[in-house]
C-alpha cells in the first residue's frame, strides 16, 4: 500500500479502512462540529468529514482529526490500519533517515482560486469555534507554517496555532522558543521588517507530520516529508512572497507577521488537554493573499486530549529523545511518549540504570526547550510500550526519596503546562522530574529483587510447558 499522496487520497484510504464517517446533515461551525471531533478523540473514534456547514456554501467541507488514532497514523504512512505502535515507530525512524528533496512546480491545485489582499475576508472560510471560551475561531490547528530565516535563508516548517482576529488579521502562538519564534525575534523584529509566512492547510499528511516533528534546528522539513511519504513533495511559490508551499494543499493563507503590532490571541484549549491562560504574549499577522482548491477541505484538529498532535509527537518526539540521549552517551534502549500524556511524559528504557543515568536523562532533555515534565526511566526488561508493565515498575521500583530527580530552569519552561501558576508561565519558570525506576547498579545481583512474573520467576522448562498448555487451551 503506497503512502497517500495528498489529503484527498488519505481520506479515501481511511474511509476504506472504516476510519472516516461522512456527515451530510447541516452542522453548526460554532462548537457543534468541533464537539463531535472532540468526542471522537476522547473515545478513540473515527475522523469525520462534514459536507454541510451552517452559514457556508457546500463547496467548503471540513474534516477533523486526521491522524488522532494509531490506525489512521498507520494508513497515513501507507501501512495496514492495525499495524502495532512499535512497528509504526520503527517505520518512521527508518524513513526519517531517507530524506527526499522536494520538486518545484509551476502549476498547483492550491492555486485554483487566488484571492488578493484587497478581497481577503477570513470569515469566508468555515473556521470552527473549537471550544466554548476560546479567544476566537482557530484557523490553524492542523497546519504547516512556512517561514524563512532572514540571514541564512533556512526555511522552517512548523505546526502552530493561529486565530482569526478579524477579516484581514490573524494572531498566533508559535512559542518564542520555537524555530519560527527564534527567526522572528532574531531576524525580523530588530530591523523592524515584517516576516512573510504561509499557513498551509490540508497538505499531504507526511508534510504535516514533518511540520509537527521534533526536528533539529536548520533541518529541512520538506526533505523529511519526502522521506516519510517515500516520494518527493511538490512545492509551488507563494503569490506574495518567495516562500514555497506544498502544491497539493487545500488552502494556503499568505501573510506577514508584524514586527511592531499585536492583538488578542487566546486563550485556547491546547494539546496538553487544558486551557491554561497562556494568553497575552503572541504575534499578529496581516493576510496578504489566500489561495485554495476549487472545492476546498478545511482541516480541524479539535485540540485537547488525544488529538492528532498527540500521536504525531508521540513518534517524532520519542525518536528525537532517543537520538539525543544516544548522542550524550545514555545507554538508551527504547523510548515511548504515550499520547495520553499530552506530550508531557516520556518513558525511557536503559540497559544500565541508576541515579546518575536518571539525572543525566532529565538534564539532557531540558537543555534547550523543556517540553517533557515527567520522564520515567526503566530497566530494559520493561517494555516501554506496555503501560501496565511501566506502571507496575513505577509503583514498585521507584524509591520515593532517592528515585526522584528534579531539575529546575528559567526562561525555557513550557508555558502550556497546566501545572504551572500564571507567574511561572509568564517567567517560563519550570521543572522536570526523572523518576528512576531502575535497580541501583551497585546492588549485587544476589540481593536485587526478582520480579514475580512468568518470564522471571519460573524455570525455562516450566515457562515452555505453561505456554504450550496455554495455547492448547485455545487461550
Amino acid at each position, binding site marked *: 500500500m503506497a503512502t497517500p499522496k495528498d489529503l484527498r487520497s488519505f481520506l479515501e484510504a481511511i474511509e476504506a479502512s472504516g476510519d472516516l464517517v461522512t456527515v451530510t446533515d447541516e452542522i453548526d461551525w*460554532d462548537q457543534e462540529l468541533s464537539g463531535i471531533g472532540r468526542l471522537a478523540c476522547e473515545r478513540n473514534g473515527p475522523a469525520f468529514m462534514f459536507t454541510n456547514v451552517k*452559514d*457556508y456554501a457546500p463547496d467548503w467541507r471540513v474534516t477533523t482529526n486526521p491522524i488522532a488514532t494509531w490506525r489512521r497514523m498507520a494508513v497515513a504512512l501507507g501501512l495496514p490500519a492495525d499495524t502495532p505502535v512499535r512497528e509504526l515507530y520503527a517505520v518512521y525512524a527508518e524513513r526519517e533517515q531517507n530524506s527526499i528533496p522536494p520538486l518545484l512546480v509551476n502549476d498547483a491545485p492550491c492555486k485554483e482560486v487566488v484571492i488578493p489582499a484587497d478581497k481577503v475576508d477570513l*470569515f*469566508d472560510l468555515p473556521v470552527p*469555534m473549537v*471550544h*466554548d*471560551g*476560546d*479567544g*476566537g*475561531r482557530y484557523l490553524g490547528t492542523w497546519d504547516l507554517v512556512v517561514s524563512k530565516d532572514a540571514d541564512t535563508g533556512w526555511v522552517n516548517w512548523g505546526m502552530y496555532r493561529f486565530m*482569526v*482576529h*478579524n*477579516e*484581514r*488579521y490573524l494572531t498566533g502562538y508559535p512559542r*518564542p522558543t520555537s524555530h519560527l*519564534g527564534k527567526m*522572528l*525575534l532574531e531576524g525580523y*523584529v530588530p530591523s523592524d521588517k515584517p516576516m512573510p509566512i504561509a499557513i498551509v492547510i490540508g497538505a499531504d499528511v507526511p508534510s504535516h507530520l514533518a511540520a509537527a516533528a521534533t526536528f533539529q534546528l536548520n533541518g529541512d522539513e520538506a526533505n523529511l516529508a519526502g522521506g516519510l511519504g517515500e516520494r518527493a513533495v511538490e512545492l509551488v511559490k507563494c503569490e506574495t512572497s518567495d516562500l514555497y508551499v506544498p502544491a497539493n494543499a487545500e488552502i494556503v493563507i499568505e501573510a506577514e*507577521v*508584524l*514586527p*511592531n*503590532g*499585536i*492583538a*488578542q*490571541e487566546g*486563550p485556547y*484549549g491546547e494539546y496538553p488537554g487544558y*486551557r*491554561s*491562560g497562556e*494568553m*497575552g*504574549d*503572541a*504575534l*499578529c499577522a496581516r493576510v496578504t493573499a489566500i489561495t485554495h482548491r476549487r472545492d476546498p477541505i478545511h482541516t480541524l484538529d479539535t485540540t485537547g486530549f488525544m488529538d492528532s498532535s498527540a500521536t504525531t509527537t508521540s513518534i517524532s518526539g520519542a525518536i528525537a529523545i532517543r537520538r539525543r540521549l544516544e548522542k550524550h552517551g545514555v545507554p538508551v534502549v527504547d523510548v515511548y511518549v504515550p499520547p495520553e500524556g499530552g506530550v508531557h511524559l516520556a518513558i525511557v528504557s536503559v540497559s544500565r540504570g541508576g541515579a546518575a543515568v536518571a539525572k543525566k536523562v532529565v538534564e539532557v532533555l531540558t537543555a534547550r526547550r523543556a517540553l517533557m515534565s515527567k520522564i520515567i526511566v526503566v530497566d530494559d526488561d520493561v517494555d516501554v510500550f506496555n503501560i501496565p508493565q511501566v506502571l507496575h515498575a513505577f509503583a514498585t521500583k521507584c524509591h520515593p526519596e532517592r528515585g526522584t530527580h528534579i531539575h529546575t530552569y528559567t526562561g525555557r519552561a513550557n508555558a502550556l503546562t497546566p501545572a504551572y501558576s*500564571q507567574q511561572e508561565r509568564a517567567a517560563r519558570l519550570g521543572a522536570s522530574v526523572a523518576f528512576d525506576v531502575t535497580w541501583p547498579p551497585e546492588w549485587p545481583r544476589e540481593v536485587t529483587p526478582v520480579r514475580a512474573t512468568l518470564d522471571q520467576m519460573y524455570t525455562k522448562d516450566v515457562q515452555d510447558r505453561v505456554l504450550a498448555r496455554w495455547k492448547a487451551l485455545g487461550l
Partner: protein
Amino acid sequence: MTKEYETFVRDRAHVVSGREVVLTLRDLTPGRKKYRGLNVRAVVSQPPRPGEPLLWLRSVVGVREKTPCSVRIVEDLPDVFEGRPYTDFFAAMARAERR
C-alpha cells in the same frame, strides 16, 4: 435583539471601574462573522445599563462570569496595538489607554 460582546480580562476591577478603558471585544452576533474582534475605547457598567449592548467578561482561561455587564463604545481603535511580538497584550492595551 440586544447586541452582545465578550472580552477576556486579566484585571477585572480595572475593566469595570466606570472609567474609559481599552478593550478587545468579540462580537457575538450570530452568523459568519461571530467572534470577530474589534479594538475599542469603551465604558463598562455593572449592573448593565438599559439600552447598552451586553458584555460578558471571561477570565484568562476563558471562564465566563454568571451575569453580564454592559458596554458603551466610545471610539473604534485600529486593528492592532503597538507592541513587539511576544510582548504583553494587556500591557499594550494599557499603553493605548493612556494615549
